[in-house]
């Protein structure tokens, strides 16, 4: 595992209509870190995540993933290194069966049949997917099941870093709890973009706050989530477990 998984220096990005999506972002994420990326709608979270996987290339600044600079010639290695789970699993699950979808990434990596079988099976086990799911049509699964299949499809590629865009969106409480427990057990570097501040508080020691494309906070999660005035300033609210402690009866 590379000790300095992600290194970003002065990254900026604007959309074709000149809207500034990211503005002078610099940060490092080390191996084994579990980092929350929070911010209001339109703050640049999804755009940022897409840079880490090479879906978007930096217009200004530098990104280094492991030992690879973000350049077109290293995209294959970078996409093997960083797995990206999209916000809406319907955008990600496009094959006819769950098994085919989970094996899509490893097949692109050139994994041979015997190892492919093991990898996909391990990914399904990690996501708590019963073997009977293998032949099911992803379109017929519930939201929580789709999300787990989407994550399994990325885990099967055995990335060193997994980035998740709004992992708890569209999940019912039980599915959300299962997801949190699963993410806790994943022994890889995680970057989680979320509006679910309770999830961020439970999973991540470090939080990065994005506001209008800029990093306005990078530090301990408890510290920023206690700062109600700061959160309000950036169109956020404290997690329920802080603002309404009576909600947390655990």
């Amino acid at each position, binding site marked *: 595992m590379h000790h300095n998984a992600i290194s970003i220096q002065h990254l900026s990005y604007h959309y074709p209509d000149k809207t500034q999506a990211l503005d002078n972002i610099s940060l490092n994420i080390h191996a084994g870190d579990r980092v929350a990326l929070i911010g209001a709608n339109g703050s640049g979270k999804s755009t940022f995540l*897409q840079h880490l*996987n*090479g*879906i978007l290339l930096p217009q200004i600044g530098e990104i280094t993933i492991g030992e690879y600079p973000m350049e077109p010639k290293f995209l*294959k290695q970078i*996409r*093997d290194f960083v*797995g*990206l789970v*999209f916000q*809406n699993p*319907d*955008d*990600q*699950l*496009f*094959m*006819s*069966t769950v*098994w*085919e979808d989970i094996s*899509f*990434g490893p*097949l*692109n*990596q*050139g994994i*041979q*049949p*015997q190892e*492919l*079988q093991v990898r996909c*099976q391990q990914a399904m086990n990690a996501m708590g997917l*019963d*073997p*009977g*799911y*293998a*032949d*099911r*049509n*992803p*379109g017929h699964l519930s939201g929580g099941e789709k999300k787990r299949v989407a994550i399994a*499809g*990325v885990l099967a*590629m055995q990335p060193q870093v997994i980035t998740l865009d709004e992992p708890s969106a569209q999940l019912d409480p039980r599915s959300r709890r299962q997801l949190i427990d699963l993410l806790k057990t994943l022994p890889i570097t995680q970057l989680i973009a979320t509006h679910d501040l309770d999830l961020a508080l439970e999973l991540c020691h470090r939080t990065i706050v994005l506001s209008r494309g800029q990093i306005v906070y990078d530090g301990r999660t408890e510290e920023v989530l206690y700062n109600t005035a700061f959160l309000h300033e950036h169109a956020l609210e404290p997690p329920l477990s802080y603002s309404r402690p009576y909600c947390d009866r655990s």
Partner: protein
Amino acid sequence: MLHSHDHHSHHYAHSPIQQAASTPLSLNVAPAIQVLCALIMVLAIGVTPNGHWITGLIYGMGIAIVLFIRPVNLTKLAQRLAVESVFVIVAVIGLLFRDGEGVLWQWGGLKITVTGLVVLGSVMGKLWLSLLVMNLLTMTMPIPVLLQSLSILKIPPLLIAILASMHRYLELLIDEFMTMRRAAIARNLVAGKRWQRLVVGNMIGSLFIRTYDRGDRIHQAMLSRGYQGVIVNQTSVRLRRRDRLALLITILFVIFGQLAFYLV
């Protein structure tokens, strides 16, 4: 409760192609061979010259035998054929008015001839027989198996990827359309029919844009998992005796159908 499989018995224990090959209704012929036989049949129907009714009759009887061996829901089959026939009729109706011998009816420059009727009848017959074959295939074979079979038959991967995406997302698009429709009804879409048509038109436009956006996001998700323009597939099939036999019977049958016109 979902059923479970033995995951260590075979590399592709989960491959639907393995399971379909072992279902009793498939006559234990490899799905790829079934697809190939269907394609040969459609090709033979297509190249049959116009007016060779006996060939069409023989092929029709062959399809009826297959229908007997592998029964399908006839109501569903008829519904499918009815919908498809609308497109077929629109596409070929012009043949009725083509020039030829034996004028049966004339009105100004428009005339119906015996030649026109023969050509129209032949083309319609060939299209219906082909549709019957393809409907039988798609109604008796799960779509994932069909797609894998096409892959084994070396159909261009991009075409298969498009078919797979259509299969996966068609339901999703229908769902999105129904969601929009529900939202419109929830806000009292009960006004005149003209207004309803306008709203449905807007919905279709909106659906088009959503489709475009979704296509873009799906492509990004594919790229993020290492997609480089070609769907990788390691599935292959080894021909067994019964597969070769099925292929041989199909080839002999289509040749017999073609020769029958000259023999009778």
